[in-house]
């Protein structure tokens, strides 16, 4: 090796240090192909009952309807903005249905399908995007945290919550009704955030019962995954000291199976797991975004062939698990849901202006109370002038 020719460093250093990433392509756990073929996996195979399959199908259809209605409501000026989940239904329903009641979820602002699984009224999701509140559901009662807008911040909250579970003695007892775990949702963009990396370190250090569920939808607004990572995201986990796995995020069966296994690992006290749900953001980042400025329609077309709902429908029909009557009934249910969302959204009233002062503190300081009273008197002065 000659030090006078810097260009010669490259190959030599690869020989010394090894390759920049593991050999071979990423392995994708899949149980249902895009064509609706049921395939088997040595580690993650599961038997699904007909009711379970129909249930997952129904969840995805209704979740897509919530998304479609919300997008339309934004276009009609009823919502300020909407973060679309189109294309990510399988990842979210699979992850959501793998939960037990005692588990806890920390979402981003796009987990509408998981919210559905946790029994959150979709109108409450609309309330946030309409601007009437910052999220009105009860995290403790639903096991579903409030949407977090700052990218990745909630992964640390999830880890801390999981550390709390360890101290509460609800990890590794062997009692399926007692043992609990946490799911931290985030995306490919968030994987670059310091908080997410710190969450990995804390979770690994304390072996906290948390599943890091990353929906890699390929895009962080306009930036492709290649801008965030030079290696498949799931491979990063090993560097932090816990397993990572990539699952077909458009396959609800595989997502369910892998999340369930990761959750069980956590509940059993075996620590964190990284699940990369490989999917695609079929819509825009939000309703204010214009993806035609930065991505090719070819890409979109190829992912359309991998649609998460179509493959389940093909499977169900081919195996005689649904008939026309079921599909018609589900369509009617979706229409009814759409109607409820439209009417409910338009009927939402703006909050009382003085409520902006509510809940800043548990114990309200006198100065803030005085500010509130002053503004109340100011508002009242307009009423008197009328």
């Amino acid at each position, binding site marked *: 090796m000659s030090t006078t020719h810097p260009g010669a460093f490259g190959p030599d250093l690869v020989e010394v240090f090894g390759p920049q990433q593991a050999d071979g392509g990423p392995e994708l756990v899949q149980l249902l192909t895009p064509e609706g073929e049921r395939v088997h996996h040595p580690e993650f195979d599961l038997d699904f009952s007909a009711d379970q399959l129909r249930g997952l199908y129904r969840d995805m259809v209704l979740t897509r309807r919530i998304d479609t209605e919300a997008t339309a409501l934004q276009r009609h000026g009823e919502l300020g903005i909407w973060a679309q989940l189109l294309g990510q239904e399988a990842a979210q329903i699979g992850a959501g249905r793998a939960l037990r009641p005692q588990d806890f979820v920390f979402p981003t602002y796009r987990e509408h399908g998981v919210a559905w699984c946790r029994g959150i009224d979709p109108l409450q999701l609309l309330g946030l995007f309409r601007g009437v509140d910052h999220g009105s559901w009860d995290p403790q009662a639903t096991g579903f945290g409030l949407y977090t807008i700052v990218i990745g911040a909630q992964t640390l*909250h999830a880890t*801390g919550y999981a550390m709390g579970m360890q101290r509460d003695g609800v990890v590794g007892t062997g009692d399926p009704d007692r043992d609990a775990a946490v799911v931290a949702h985030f995306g490919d963009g968030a994987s670059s955030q310091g908080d997410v990396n710190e969450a990995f370190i804390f979770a690994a*250090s304390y072996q906290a019962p948390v599943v890091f569920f990353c929906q890699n939808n390929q895009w962080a607004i306009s930036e492709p995954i290649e801008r965030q990572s030079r290696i498949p995201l799931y491979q990063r986990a090993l560097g932090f000291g816990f397993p990572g796995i990539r699952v077909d995020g458009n396959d609800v069966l595989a997502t369910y199976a892998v999340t369930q296994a990761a959750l069980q690992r956590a509940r059993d006290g075996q620590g964190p797991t990284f699940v990369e749900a490989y999917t695609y953001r079929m819509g825009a980042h939000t309703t204010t975004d214009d993806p035609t400025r930065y991505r090719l329609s070819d890409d979109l077309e190829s992912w359309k062939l991998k649609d998460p709902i179509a493959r389940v429908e093909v499977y169900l029909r081919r195996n005689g698990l649904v008939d026309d009557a079921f599909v018609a009934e589900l369509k009617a249910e979706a229409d009814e849901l759409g109607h409820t969302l439209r009417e409910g959204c338009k009927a939402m009233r703006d909050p009382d202006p003085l409520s902006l002062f509510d809940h800043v*503190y548990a114990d309200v300081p006198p100065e*803030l109370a005085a500010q509130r009273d002053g503004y109340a008197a100011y508002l009242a002065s307009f009423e008197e002038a009328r």
Partner: protein
Amino acid sequence: MAAAHDTQGTRTITLAKGLNAGLRRAMEDDPKVLLMGEDVGKLGGVFRITDGLQKDFGEDRVIDSPLAESGIVGTAVGLAMRGYRPVVEIQFDGFVYPAYDQIVCQVAKIHYRSRGRVPMPIVIRIPFGGGIGAVEHHSESPEAQFAHTPGLKVVACSNPVDGYWMIQQAIACDDPVVFLEPKRQYHADKAELDEAARPEPLFASRVVRAGTDATLIAYGPTVKTCLAAAQAAATEGRSLEVIDLRTLSPLDLAPVLESVRRTGRAVVVHEAHVNLGLGAELAARLTEQCFYSLEAPVLRVGGFDAPYPASRIEEDFLPDLDRVLDAVDRSLEF
């Protein structure tokens, strides 16, 4: 440093011992209280404030954390959501900034965001201020950045007895509290602690020396500076009142207004940069609320609007007795 008990049930303590004893008592009173931070376990913290606590309460309650401030505060948020009362230690003032996002966007806002459903009883302990001859980032006074943030409460202790009581009150508080400790006082002065005494409320300011000619307003490390200045002024026949603010957000203005209405003159003294510091807010409030009592503009003595300097010239940066008295002279001559 050993605490000596006397026959009346009082003992002589430093600020470090007062904080340590206060933390211990809070942990005894409530099993949900956890301590977390860098080196707080076996080592007892770099200033030994948590000395002996991991030994007595175990590793599950006194948690040595990875070296990541955002991680410390962010996981504390999750622990609070699970029903715990985390007390986190930021090792030095200048290291709080990696946690700044978690503090101002999450800790401060989760109670509000959740319409009161999710409490955030977190205490963020920060040793603050200079005067210890340290390298960069170890001598700062970031209080205004937190006092500016709705949802946080910010307090500063100035003496051993307050340290003992205020840390317990901050832990019992259902709101998040940024708890500032004047690090150069940790092992300096001693005071008599009576654990059976009834403490003052946490969010209350206090007149620590009565006077008639001008009011000195201070907190944390500058309370001692101002008391020394008042002592020196007294030998020249000037009577200065000294107020220890103790609470920076919310402010407890009543004792301040009462004092300034009597003296007509106010000088605010803090180590933080003067520009947009607590002194600016106090000057505005005093102007609004006792304009006709003021005989002179409210003056500020603080750190200059330069980054904290190298330690060999930090005494030039920090407000000292002479700079305080110089401001008093200017106020009296106005």
